[in-house]
């Protein structure tokens, strides 16, 4: 299944064969009231105009703080959450307009790994049933023995013993459960795997194992990953390209090394400066950018640049009224009007006054507006 996506003309020059292309993707969740008939009183703009390209065989890392819409973006790409607008092309096919039946057939080529392995595994299914379900849904494998074969090979690939088949999720440790989740995704032989916080629910020692497993599998099977995480170190380790999300949109996108070496967007700089350095002297002396205030409500995002309310480099012109587009600045794509001036040191950071009451906030009380993020239930 390695058809080159020849009919995709929108790919940027120099980009390799793209497996996933997202154009101006929007996911808005309606806020409704009413007893019998829903009345829409507003929208939570969880994802608001995202363009990104995931090259085949590579890993795209998506970082951002909680509630910035990165999980929703991952789900919208897989059409698990229906997008409000925009395009998602998978291997040249436009997914947003596919019928439900065609989309179901296509699902074996794109799979998902979840954050909390306990809540993403049905407690009443044993491992064999978990792994058979996808095979049965797509009619893969003629008989029981053929399916057993596929399943056993998958178990070997993720490093689980064969006797795990008759056991139930609650009998495994966290790391093993995540391996079951990975096996469930792999058993269908997908090309794309969207990993939504694949390790953040695991112990640090086990995080390393799972990440290395994902790495090995990519090498062996030529998988394409979209890894969503808030842990910058994890993303740096596994990603080829990293995109930074803030309030529903990408603010910066660059090759992993480059992004960590010289972040251009003020938000990325703040994120990077939050990573502790393992040298106590350096840690004490290094510059830290502390962001003032909270993430604004995605139901009522700030005008212009989404980040201008918290940006230490915000300028009186443009920032508050003109939304910056992602543009190429020396190989990095960044959505900031003043990226060059900030990089050269021409603009200096200044104090940010926290606005307790945002102007134009007459819609909803912010307390009842919350972005639907990971519905993790901590049992």
């Amino acid at each position, binding site marked *: 299944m390695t058809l080159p996506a020849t009919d995709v003309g929108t790919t940027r020059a120099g980009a390799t064969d793209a497996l996933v292309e997202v154009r101006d993707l929007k996911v808005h969740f309606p806020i409704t009231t009413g007893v019998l008939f829903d009345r829409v009183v507003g929208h939570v703009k969880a994802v608001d105009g995202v363009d990104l390209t995931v090259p085949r065989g590579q890993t795209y890392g998506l970082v951002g703080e909680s509630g910035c819409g990165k999980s929703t973006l991952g789900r919208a790409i897989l059409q698990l959450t229906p997008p409000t607008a925009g395009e998602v092309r998978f291997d040249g096919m436009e997914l947003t307009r596919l019928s439900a039946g065609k989309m179901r057939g296509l699902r074996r080529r794109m799979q998902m790994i979840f954050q909390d392995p306990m*809540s993403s595994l049905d407690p009443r299914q044993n491992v064999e049933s978990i792994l058979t379900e996808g095979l049965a849904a797509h009619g893969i494998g003629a008989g029981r023995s053929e399916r057993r074969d596929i399943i056993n090979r998958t178990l070997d690939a993720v490093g689980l013993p064969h006797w795990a088949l008759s056991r139930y999720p609650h009998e495994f440790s966290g790391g093993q459960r995540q391996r079951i989740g990975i096996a469930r995704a792999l058993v269908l032989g997908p090309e794309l795997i969207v990993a939504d916080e694949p390790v953040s629910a695991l112990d640090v020692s086990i995080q390393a*194992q799972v990440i290395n497993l994902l790495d090995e599998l990519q090498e062996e099977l030529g998988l394409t990953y979209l890894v969503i995480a808030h842990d910058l170190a994890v993303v740096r380790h596994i990603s080829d390209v990293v995109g930074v999300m803030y309030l529903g949109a990408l603010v910066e996108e660059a090759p992993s090394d480059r992004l960590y070496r010289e972040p251009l967007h003020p938000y990325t700089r703040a994120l990077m400066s939050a990573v502790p350095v393992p040298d106590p002297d350096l840690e004490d002396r290094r510059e830290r950018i502390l962001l003032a205030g909270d993430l604004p409500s995605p139901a009522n995002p700030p005008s212009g640049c989404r980040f201008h309310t918290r940006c230490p480099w915000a300028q009186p012109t443009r920032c508050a009224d003109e939304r910056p587009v992602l543009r190429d600045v020396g190989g990095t794509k960044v959505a900031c009007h003043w990226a060059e001036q900030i990089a050269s040191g021409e603009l200096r950071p200044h104090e940010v006054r926290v606005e307790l009451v945002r102007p134009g906030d007459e819609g909803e009380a912010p307390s009842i507006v919350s972005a639907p993020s990971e519905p993790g239930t901590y049992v």
Partner: protein
Amino acid sequence: MTLAPGKKKEKLDRLAELSAVHDDERGVSLWREAMRRLRRNPAAIVGAVILAAFVLVAVIGPFLVPYEPTDTIGVREKVVSSGHGIIPGPSADHWLGYDHQGRDEFSRMVVGARQTLIVGIVSTLIGLTIGVLIGGVAGAAAGLGGRWGRLVDNVLMRIVDMMLSLPSLLLAVSVAALLGPSLVTVMIAVGMVSVPVFARLLRGAMIAQANRDYVLAASSLGVRKSKIAISHIVPNSLAPVIVQATLTLATAIIEVAALSFLGLGNPDSAVPEWGLMLADAQKYLDVRPGLAIYPAVGIIITALGFTLLGEAMREALDPKLRR
């Protein structure tokens, strides 16, 4: 996090992790785990013993009773004259004495157990079936059906709300009065009372389950929505419904007794039933209070048995307590 690229294959770690689960005995399913916990709970055992005794009496008791429960021997033999307040108490021949019509009270208690059990089980099943159907459809529609699903759910739930807004006994009385007094009517009436409870319970549990990641995982595998609802969401939502069913059995028995007491029960008053016996006994409370006490104690103990078992099952099925 430190990730040296040279140490990619941490086989040792992996082996250590795998050794946490040993040998190849079969996995323990949730239900079997719950049964094990149930067996260790003293309240569950007491409840189960009470219920076992009750069921045993109800099933084989009627074949062993010393007298016909409808035979008015006391009147025939001129030892009972309820009009003059003469109702003899317990004796060697009649262990619980006679009732107001000169029938053997012990035989009536034993045969009445069967009636009570049947009425309790059947009315609970009626409520459970209708409630699970309504709640299941509403829950699946609300959880997976998008905008139209929410509308379906809304309509169904408003109907359920209407049922819920009527006082349960009033609802049962209206149903019983509407359909005319008979045993079947009583069972339908008592069943209808529990419909909204089951429907709401199942719907709520299903909506909670529909937001879990494993449902998302199943749809990302390409499993059909209908299959997800039936094979994932419903089985995971049934635990509270089953617990509620055992508790409803207890209240159903009491409600049937109440309806019989109000004269809306089985019109064939010769057939013994604990609620009816209680109702009949009220006129003779000053003469023979025992006639009221025996069926009342029977109802209380049975309801207690069901409640104990139900509560223990709630604990056993609670995933938060699972190790």
